[in-house]
């Protein structure tokens, strides 16, 4: 049994860390609230956050849809089929999970510049599809390997094609795993900073975090305005997190656990 003193001590320690975790976030919220609605309106209009959010939304939607679809297909191949070169190909994909984007961003910039593709939507979105596909393949493969083999066999005996087996038999029960993957890819893409920083020069293509970084350079002294911008950038992911936190926590913890 735990004594009363020990229990109080435990609550004290936990409270200290809860306050430590919330303190910087509350600093932002308080300053943003201090600026009132006008602060948000000013950030939205003067700060051009409406265009930044539009870009972020477009890039995130593209990266999520494409990389999750491709990951489901490649995870299906790795998880339920046997083919020559399987292990080597899988290890190639694993490389990408740990690969720092700093290492690939430099050559990508100069090669895309040669092709005239820098400062385009594609230069921001496609490298992030590649990074997400590495994790997504790993994630969906783990799921499909653990899903029942009997279902795949039954579908085949029923005469379902490999394509239909995937989308009509395996994908529907995989929904929780896919939702987790969607949320993680969305969060990573929405929060990504380095790739847009390097690839984008025109203001119309700035994503929300990049816009906030530039905004910060301009309005260092007006913290209320900066805080309003920060709230606008952070809110979409935080809302998803508050409602679907199980997915975020499970994904971020299990995603790291390799076999």
């Amino acid at each position, binding site marked *: 049994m735990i004594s009363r003193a*020990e229990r109080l001590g435990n609550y004290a320690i936990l409270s200290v860390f809860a306050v430590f975790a919330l303190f910087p976030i509350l600093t932002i919220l308080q300053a943003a609230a201090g600026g009132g609605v006008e602060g948000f309106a000013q950030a939205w209009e003067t700060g051009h956050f409406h265009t930044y959010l539009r870009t972020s939304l477009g890039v995130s939607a593209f990266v999520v849809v494409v990389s999750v679809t491709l990951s489901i297909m490649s995870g299906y191949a790795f998880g339920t089929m046997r083919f020559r070169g399987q292990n080597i190909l899988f290890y190639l994909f694993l490389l990408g999970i740990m690969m720092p984007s700093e290492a690939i961003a430099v050559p990508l910039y100069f090669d895309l510049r040669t092709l005239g593709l820098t400062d385009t939507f594609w230069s921001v979105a496609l490298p992030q599809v590649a990074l997400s596909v590495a994790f997504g393949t790993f994630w969906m493969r783990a799921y499909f390997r653990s899903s029942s083999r009997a279902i795949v066999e039954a579908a085949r005996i029923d005469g379902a094609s490999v394509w239909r087996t995937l989308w009509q038999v395996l994908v529907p029960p995989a929904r929780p795993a896919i939702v987790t993957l969607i949320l993680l890819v969305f969060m990573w893409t929405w929060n990504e900073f380095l790739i847009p920083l390097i690839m984008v020069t025109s203001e119309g293509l700035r994503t929300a975090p990049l816009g906030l970084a530039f905004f910060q350079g301009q309005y260092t002294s007006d913290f209320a305005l900066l805080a309003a911008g920060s709230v606008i950038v952070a809110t979409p992911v935080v809302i998803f997190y508050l409602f679907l936190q199980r997915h975020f926590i499970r994904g971020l913890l299990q995603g790291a656990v390799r076999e």
Partner: protein
Amino acid sequence: MTRPPGEPRRVAYLFLLPAFAVYAAFLLYPIGRAVQLSLYDWDGLTLGTWAGLDNYAAIIADGELRDAFGHALVLMFFYAALPLAIGLMLAAILNHAKVRGLGFFRTVVFLPQVVAMVVVAVAWRQVYSSDGSLNALLEAVGLGGLARGWLGDYTFALPAVGVVGTWFETGLVTVLMLAGMSKIPLELYEAARLDGAGAVREFFAVTLPSVRGEIAVALTLTVIAALRTFDLVYITTGGGPGNSTSVPSYEVYHRAFELGQVGSAAAIGVTLTLVIFVISFAINRFADRSVS
């Protein structure tokens, strides 16, 4: 590796093709190009000249680059070691005592993981500024003499950046440790109690060995995060004052896009990649061996 289910199928290649095509074009090919670029002296505009391994030798010889990797080591203490110590303690408390509000606590401490690093950096810049909340707190408790502009201070800028890492990673590590500890069978604790073990011995004899796998995962994630620190440094200090907070990732960006030393930037990027692979391999090897 165990054999995956299913019969040999060539159609597998068709399912792999789209993912592999994007992956090869935007990840595998660029890393190959990075290795190639790292062997040249190139300003990004004119014709490059062959440099052999000079750019790699410079990582050891050049004081500024050596410093950048040294700073990454300091950050590892703040990003990995400190959160691990705190996370183990918090998780042990939460697992041991049936405290109320566990769900709320987990939601709160994990929250920093989902907030964009740019926003985190903006918040902490304010906390550390000369009229910011840290100095206000110090003055409130009578330590106003310690107040300063933390991020502009040669001694304190790097630890200040490190503390943001501690703040950022502690929740992740705590939740990971909690997940591990919740799987420990109660009988183990009862057995330890019967042997007369106190709370401290119980922690070292039962809890710690049982979460070895989770510790390996936590260290891998946080050490890599420390090595890859970029957004935070870019926004809060820009590597300064002087080069007191420069880190490898920041040097990659700084050299490639601000100094026009593309070859050197590529060499740092390749080295960073290798260091990350070696460290995560070593941590997982170590965890595997100590389990068996």
